[in-house]
């Protein structure tokens, strides 16, 4: 996966490979650019795994710290994003296994202002209160359903459906075959469809 296009039109951003090389050569500011570039995607991936903002923040920091500390072990046989996602996924899965019995179904509603976003406003629904209630209910149900999946299945769904990665990329991140990714995805979709049968 290539680095996303630059947000600033005037100043072209260097590619990941160059930034990694500069970091490996001892330039810490190069890693800052990588962090800013990938923070939202890594955050989204972790958040959909752990479903809690505070934990996501900690895991995000730990992921980038680990990536920075192990940047010398990064080989160019995979893209930097794949390598970074692999660290994040493994970190999130380990965290979830450690906190297996903790009730982390609670949502951080402070940051998840999903019901206020205009792209989710259904024009058929006339009442704002009713719309917000429906969206909140749907959001909760969706999160609950995702949390019912195993860590591996949740990771596949998050990477495919939320992050938009290909089966091949997910296979590289999770260090399994593309067939395994497809199989896990099919099973996870089936499970989710069962849990969300009233909404889909």
């Amino acid at each position, binding site marked *: 996966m290539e680095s996303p296009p630059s947000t600033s039109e005037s100043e072209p951003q260097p590619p990941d490979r160059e930034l990694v090389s500069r970091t490996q050569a001892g330039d810490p500011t190069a890693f800052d650019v990588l962090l*800013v570039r990938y923070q939202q995607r890594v955050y989204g991936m972790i958040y959909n795994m752990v479903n809690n903002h505070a934990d996501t923040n900690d895991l995000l*920091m730990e992921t980038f*710290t680990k990536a920075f500390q192990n940047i010398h072990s990064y080989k160019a046989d995979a893209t930097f994003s794949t390598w970074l996602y692999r660290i994040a996924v493994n970190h999130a899965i380990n965290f979830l296994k450690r906190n297996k019995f903790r009730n982390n179904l609670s949502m951080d509603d402070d*940051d998840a202002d999903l019901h206020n976003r205009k*792209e989710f406003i259904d024009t058929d629904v006339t009442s704002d209160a009713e719309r917000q209630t429906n969206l909140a209910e749907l959001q909760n149900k969706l999160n609950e359903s995702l949390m019912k999946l195993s860590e591996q299945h949740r990771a596949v769904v998050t990477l495919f459906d*939320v992050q938009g990665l290909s089966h091949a990329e997910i296979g590289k991140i999770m260090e399994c075959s593309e*067939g395994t990714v497809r199989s896990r995805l099919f099973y996870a979709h089936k499970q989710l*469809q069962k849990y969300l049968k009233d*909404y889909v």
Partner: protein
Amino acid sequence: MFNKERSEENFQGLQKLLAMKRTELPPQSYFDGVLSEFHNRQRAQLLEPRYTFVSRFFEALETIRESLQPRPVLRYAMATSAVVLLLAASLKVSWTDGASSSGLALQTATPSVSENFAFTQALEPQKVSNVDQQIDAASVGPVSLDNKRVLPHYVIAQAPTSYDTAMAF
């Protein structure tokens, strides 16, 4: 081989629903502060004290001690019972000391010569009478085989008598 078409069947609605989660992100102000927080954490890690084995050991001890601390309500009860136990133990020790020291004095006291003599005299008549006691010879039977506890045994002294009539020719 997994069927690709099968994997994508009838999941359009679900995928639309899951796509909602793409926008489930904190506001941009949060991401503006991520880099500075990352730097702060890196600096904090550098300033962290280096833990040695000994310091880790004492830290573990402290953790154990804290985990064993009772609830505040029970603290007073535990303190009181500890004081009572200490008092009882000290009283017992002092009483035992007194008793054992007097016993020891009795055991280790060496009697004087006069005391020893009087003690011997008191025992003497009894000792003499025992020695002079006469043994009645008649009461003591001679040691013989008759005195032995043997089972009765019978000797047939005569020839057996037959009750049959003697045959006469």
